[in-house]
């Protein structure tokens, strides 16, 4: 059975960051995430699907690009600014502030006592009723374990993450 391909997605911070980073900066064993995230994002744009994310995405991406990139001497501050501005502007994001109650209820269902970061994204996906795309297998497993009513897709399992032509696999639903 071929998995239906949606017309809108909630996209995790890790997908945006893996997509924007020059591959040479990423640990070699993680290059598959760069490749699959880039293909997914490129196809999502090509097929003009709705690309949603939580407002938290930008500060999370800014944090990682500064702390692990600029501060570690991977690239200059000016180039780090270019990367974060590119994430902010090059994709027609629809930004969401999720409902407070939905975030807290999601956090409780996830049985988490830490940061509400995961719950922010899952609450957006739940409210929109669309899939959430991530590279994070820990989050994927938590959603399965706690039977969260959100479809979470690991990017490498989505047909758009594979090599091919941009027009491959248009949305089916």
């Amino acid at each position, binding site marked *: 059975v071929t998995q239906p391909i949606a017309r809108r997605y909630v996209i*995790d*911070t*890790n997908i945006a*960051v*893996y*997509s*924007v*980073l*020059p*591959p*040479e*900066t*990423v*640990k*070699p064993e*993680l*290059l*598959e*995430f*760069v*490749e*699959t995230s*880039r*293909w997914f*994002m*490129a196809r999502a*744009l090509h097929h003009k699907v709705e690309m949603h994310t939580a407002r938290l995405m930008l500060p*999370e991406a800014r*944090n*990682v690009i500064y*702390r*692990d*990139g600029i501060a*570690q*001497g*991977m*690239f*200059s501050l000016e*180039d780090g600014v*270019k*990367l974060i*501005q*590119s*994430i902010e502007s*090059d*994709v027609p994001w629809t930004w969401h502030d999720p409902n407070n109650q939905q975030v807290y209820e999601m956090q409780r269902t996830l049985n988490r006592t*830490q*940061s509400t*970061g*995961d719950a922010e994204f899952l609450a957006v996906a739940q409210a929109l009723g669309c899939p959430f795309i991530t*590279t*994070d297998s*820990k989050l994927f497993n938590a959603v399965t374990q706690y039977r969260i009513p959100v479809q979470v897709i690991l990017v490498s399992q989505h047909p758009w993450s594979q*090599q091919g032509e*941009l027009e491959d696999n248009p949305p089916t639903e």
Partner: protein
Amino acid sequence: MDMSKTSTISTKTRAEALTAAKAAPTPFSATGQVRVLKSGTMDPGKAIRKLRDK
């Protein structure tokens, strides 16, 4: 154990992975404009996980 052989296989695999990653299209215009000063240590997935596990 033939370490040189292991190293060769490993290096080739990483080189192929780098080629595939570079060949993948990116929607972000800044990627190709950045001058990389140091290579191969970023783990964005782990970094984001750390932020959310605090």
